[in-house]
């Protein structure tokens, strides 16, 4: 059942990807209004599918990478819809929609069923830890997207290649401010994600910090984003430098999320003993 729902969800994300691309190409208002709605429909179905899994299994579908990807795309679309509501940044959908489509595709590609979870881990720590960590990551994904847009826009302005004054890209000032807003939101979420994970580990395994590769990579990105935020607030960092560092930070997160677990076996990769 939830797989069927996930398939429809993926289709809606694909449709949304299409309409966002048409929006960028034609800049018709119609597509800028309808595209977020399509993503919203996808998000609701996605919610239903994940909710179904949660009630059937008793824990969120995050025990395997493909499941985690699906949940991650769900969180990201959710955050995007919130941002769209608050800041009207339709063009961000061009980044979110295709990513959500690919991730949700991974979620259904390998059929149903997830890894078995030791009963002791089936606590509320799991949804709490996963939700916070994913929320933080999703916000950083958007920070990554606006930073990428910043660099593109900045390059075009500096090199004077404003061939088509290119309406959908927001102003540098706006992109820079959104980068700040996303950092301000993303950093506490990430901090809480790490904290809950550590507390949970302390409660279950007895030690709060075990120098797992995932923990180390999280610590590195946490430091990176932390100093970025610090630099922004106290030293007045802004613009290209911040955009560039944000992108580096996210690439580390994403890279580890996708490949790290298969290289370094760990508790995050299904080894719970």
């Amino acid at each position, binding site marked *: 059942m939830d797989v069927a729902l996930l398939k429809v969800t993926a289709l809606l994300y694909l449709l949304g990807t299409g309409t966002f691309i048409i929006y960028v190409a034609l800049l018709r208002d119609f597509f800028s209004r309808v595209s977020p709605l399509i993503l919203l429909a996808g998000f609701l179905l996605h919610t239903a599918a994940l909710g179904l899994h949660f009630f059937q299994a008793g824990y969120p579908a995050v025990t395997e990478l493909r499941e985690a990807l699906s949940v991650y795309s769900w969180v990201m679309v959710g955050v995007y819809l919130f941002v769209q509501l608050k800041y009207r940044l339709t063009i961000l959908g061009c980044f979110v929609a295709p990513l959500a489509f690919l991730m949700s595709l991974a979620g259904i590609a390998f059929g149903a069923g997830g890894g078995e979870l030791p009963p002791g881990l089936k606590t509320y720590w799991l949804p709490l830890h996963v939700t916070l960590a994913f929320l933080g990551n999703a916000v950083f994904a958007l920070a990554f997207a606006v930073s990428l847009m910043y660099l593109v826009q900045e390059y075009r302005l500096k090199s004077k290649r404003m061939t088509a004054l290119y309406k959908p890209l927001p*102003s540098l000032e706006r992109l820079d401010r959104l980068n700040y807003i996303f950092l301000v939101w993303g950093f506490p979420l990430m901090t809480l994600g790490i904290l809950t994970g550590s507390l949970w580990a302390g409660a279950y395994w007895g030690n709060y910090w075990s120098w797992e590769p995932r923990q180390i990579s999280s610590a590195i990105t946490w430091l990176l984003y932390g100093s970025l935020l610090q630099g922004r607030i106290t030293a007045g960092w802004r613009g290209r430098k911040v955009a560039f560092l944000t992108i580096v930070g996210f690439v580390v997160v994403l890279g580890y999320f996708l490949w790290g677990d298969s290289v370094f076996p760990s508790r995050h990769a299904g080894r719970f003993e």
Partner: protein
Amino acid sequence: MNKEIVIVGLNHRTAPVEVRERVAFDNSLLGETLQCLRALPSVQEGAVLSTCNRVEVVAATSDREAAFEEIKKFLLEQESGSGESNLEDHLYAYAGDQAVRHLFRVAASLDSMVVGEPQILGQLKDYYVAAQEVGSVGTVLHRLFHRSFSVAKRVRTETGIASRAVSVSSVAVELAKRIFDRLEDKTVMLIGAGKIGNLVARHLQRSGVSSLMVTNRTFERAVEVAAQFRGNPIRFEEFPRYLKLADLVVGCAGAPETLLRPETVEETLRERKQKAMFFIDLGDRRNFDPLINEIDNVYLYDIDDLQAVARENLHGRTGEVRKAEEIVDEEVAGFLRWLDSLDQVPTIVALRQRLEEIRQSEIEKSLRTSLKGLSEKERQAIEDMTAAMISKILHAPISRLKRPLEEREEALYVEALKRLFGLEEK
């Protein structure tokens, strides 16, 4: 004897601003200047045009080479002060169709620094009126100037050129909106009082910019311009101190030296905590060091950049200049046809012919009716008498036309004759 148009002068392409300034005509002495010009032996009609981008002498002459020489000398005499460069190296001289085309292109703003800017036509009209008041323009230049005004009008209405000048300032606004989220909370500093700078500042203000600082080498001018924009005048020596308050800096000063160096801008940026700055350089010599664009969070566009962006963004407008040039070509041909027809020889011939025709047809008519049955001798007498009458009637006007002293009015008389006797249709 045929008249032609000659133009001698210099413009923003051939001469830097300090050379242009050296020969710029003093407008308070314009009457005398025009008198002097007209007093030149080879110049039958003359007018001048002196804007910050060009100084030109337009004349009608029958002796192109002599006119070139005399007008060049005339311009050299206008020169106040001296510089390293020789004025003569910056002068161009056009005659005939080239001169006509040049003036038409100037009027249509095709020769302007910002192609399509509308001010030049008004300036041209002012200088024409001044020449008219002094009486230094005659039939040929009257016609030439009026044609140039209508060329300008045609180009403006039939092509999209006029919107291009606007687009330089609207491109500046568009770019500002790519850098800044909103302009309402931004401050503009306007350096110098160049026209394009004013235009851009006005456009920015219309787009929401509320705060404006104006600085100028002469403080009174800064106060004047600031009043126009309801902005704050700033002393020129102090403007770098105020730079940190400006988000947009529009430079349109005719300064020969660079006003802002990268070090100053870097320092300013530190003071404003790296908040982005947009420099718009509209000076005909660069006001800002191009290296400023290399600084993080700083964007520098000069007029060429703005025009390049404008060009690339105006789809279908690329053909507009060509269309305008076609209009100019058409009008040049029309004017030259008219000028040719002003030549006295064909006019005299045509006049004689016209009267002869009348004479012949009247004699024929009379001989067929009221004077039927006249003897051959009597007929001959009537022939001789009427021919003599025509000849007597024509004597005064033709000798007047041919008299070299009255050469300047030749065109006027030729034109008058043609109109009075309906010779034009022929």
